[in-house]
């Protein structure tokens, strides 16, 4: 169990700490251009090298982590904030009109290729980190609604819920006091996975120019800028990409590890 949890937690922690640290300190200023220093390979002065404006790539990655984490975190928050109540309500009124409406709505959102709609939203409303958050967040809603509903439905047939009903508690109160605490583990695990997907989505959106706008550094845009220079200075493209891969890998391992830790019924070695 610890095999995945520990490295996952460590990798994720590195990036969260780098992002937080960037508020106080970065090796160099990210808006400090020094054209004379452009496209320097990694060295003692610039651990990860410099980009086409001579900016320090390590500093850019640290500040970029802030953007990625903020966008993905708020998007997960939107997904949970709307999806969990919807899922709870659908399960509490299982088979009713509300359930049907919520699930059909979910199916519909699922039918849209998420990236296409994210592109549509950010393109229409203007490219910005906020619009990227909204676009990614909308697609987290059905994920959490479906997960919560499924888990809650299984709980509604349990004896302790029956006992709560007999005790005279209403559906809303049972959902909040008994169902929600019992689905929290699942939500944490899914939250971690959606968080990592959010980081990938944010990177893709900023890569095509629809995410955070200059001068806010973001990993996706660093890659877009690097694209034409990949032959001259491969490190410019390698470093931000590695940052994305390691963060997403860390979060995925953390999610898997948490799932194993929180749900011992799932044996080792299952996907």
């Amino acid at each position, binding site marked *: 169990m610890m095999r995945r949890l520990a490295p996952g937690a460590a990798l994720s922690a590195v990036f969260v700490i780098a992002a937080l640290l960037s508020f106080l300190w970065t090796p160099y200023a990210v808006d400090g251009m020094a054209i004379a220093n452009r496209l320097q390979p990694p060295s003692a002065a610039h651990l990860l090298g410099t980009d086409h404006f001579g900016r320090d790539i390590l500093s850019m990655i640290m500040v970029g982590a802030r953007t990625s984490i903020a966008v993905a975190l708020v998007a997960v928050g939107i997904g949970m904030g709307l999806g969990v109540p919807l899922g709870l309500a659908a399960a509490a009124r299982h088979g009713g009109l509300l359930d049907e409406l919520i699930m059909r709505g979910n199916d519909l959102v699922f039918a*849209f290729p998420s990236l296409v709609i994210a592109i549509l939203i950010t393109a*229409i409303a203007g490219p910005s980190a906020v619009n990227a958050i909204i676009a990614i967040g909308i697609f987290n809603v059905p994920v959490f609604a479906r997960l919560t509903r499924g888990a809650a439905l299984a709980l509604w047939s349990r004896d302790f819920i029956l006992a709560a009903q007999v005790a005279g508690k209403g559906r809303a109160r049972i959902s909040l006091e008994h169902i929600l605490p019992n689905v929290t583990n699942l939500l944490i695990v899914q939250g971690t996975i959606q968080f990592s997907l959010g980081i990938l989505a944010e990177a893709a959106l900023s890569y095509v120019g629809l995410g955070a706008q200059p001068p806010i550094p973001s990993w996706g845009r660093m*890659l877009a800028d690097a694209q034409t220079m*990949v032959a001259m200075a*491969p490190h410019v493209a390698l470093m931000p990409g590695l940052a994305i891969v390691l963060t997403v890998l860390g979060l995925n391992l953390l999610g898997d590890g948490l799932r194993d830790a929180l749900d011992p019924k799932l044996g080792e070695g299952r996907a």
Partner: protein
Amino acid sequence: MLRYALNRLVSLGLSLIVASLVIFLVVEVAPGDPASFMLGINAQPDTVAALQAELGLDVPKWQRYLTWVGGMLTGDFGTSYTYRTPVSEMVADRLWISLPLALYALALSTALAFPAALYAASRRGRPGDMAVMGATQLGIAVPNFWFAMLLVLLFAINLGWFSAGGFPGWDDPLAAMKALTLPAIALALPQAAILARVMRSALIDIMAEDFMRTARAKGLTRSQTLWRHGVRNALIPVLTIIGLQFSFLLAGAIIIEQVFFLPGLGRLIFQAISQRDLIVVESVVMLLVFAVILVTFLTDLAYAAVDPRLRRRA
């Protein structure tokens, strides 16, 4: 089965209606009138009005919606505001890049995932399994557009085996397929990782079934059992995932096309967005959503054909 199919068909129709409404509304609330955008800020009001009338923008929104949907149903996607050519022609040209790319990637992803999953499942818990699982864990974490850049760096710039981008057209099918190879690999890798994990799980579940033990008991070897009885049963969940992946591949193609400068639907949609060519944006997005809803519908049907329990549940 017929009742189930009809039920899904109604659901398909409703999804398409709601999807078209959502797309139309999202695009319509966009600030900026295409006519004034095309004519620039110094345009006279009467010129703008004339162009609006020409583009059919002067009628009420509901009427425009009906015209748009009615046109789509008959294959008339309207006329591009910027290029003044039928959208259906523009889409058809681009589709011949995006669709083969998505299918190529789907084939690659399946071809990669199946052997990997079989190998891992047959060596569950052993180093071979762990190596495959580790590789898929990495595959899921890699952004496909970054992987694409690495492929360009290695195979186009350093080795010179492929061109770094562009598309020669289908006149020379071999050259065309070659131009789509690196993009298809970049698209396929993350999907192959997901597919391999799902298939490995499915195979491991199947291997715990009684009929697998029976097959072993009657003298089949481990790999014979896996091939003859395991794979066939594991295919059911795997087919669903393959169906779902189609939408990821289509959407992913939009991003990957940017890396390789491929003139597919992705480039069309980004161009149209920057030129406020709303009718093109609406139509391309609607087409993509239609493709996804249709594939989901077909997957549902295929699933029901294979597993009779699903028909009754509907």
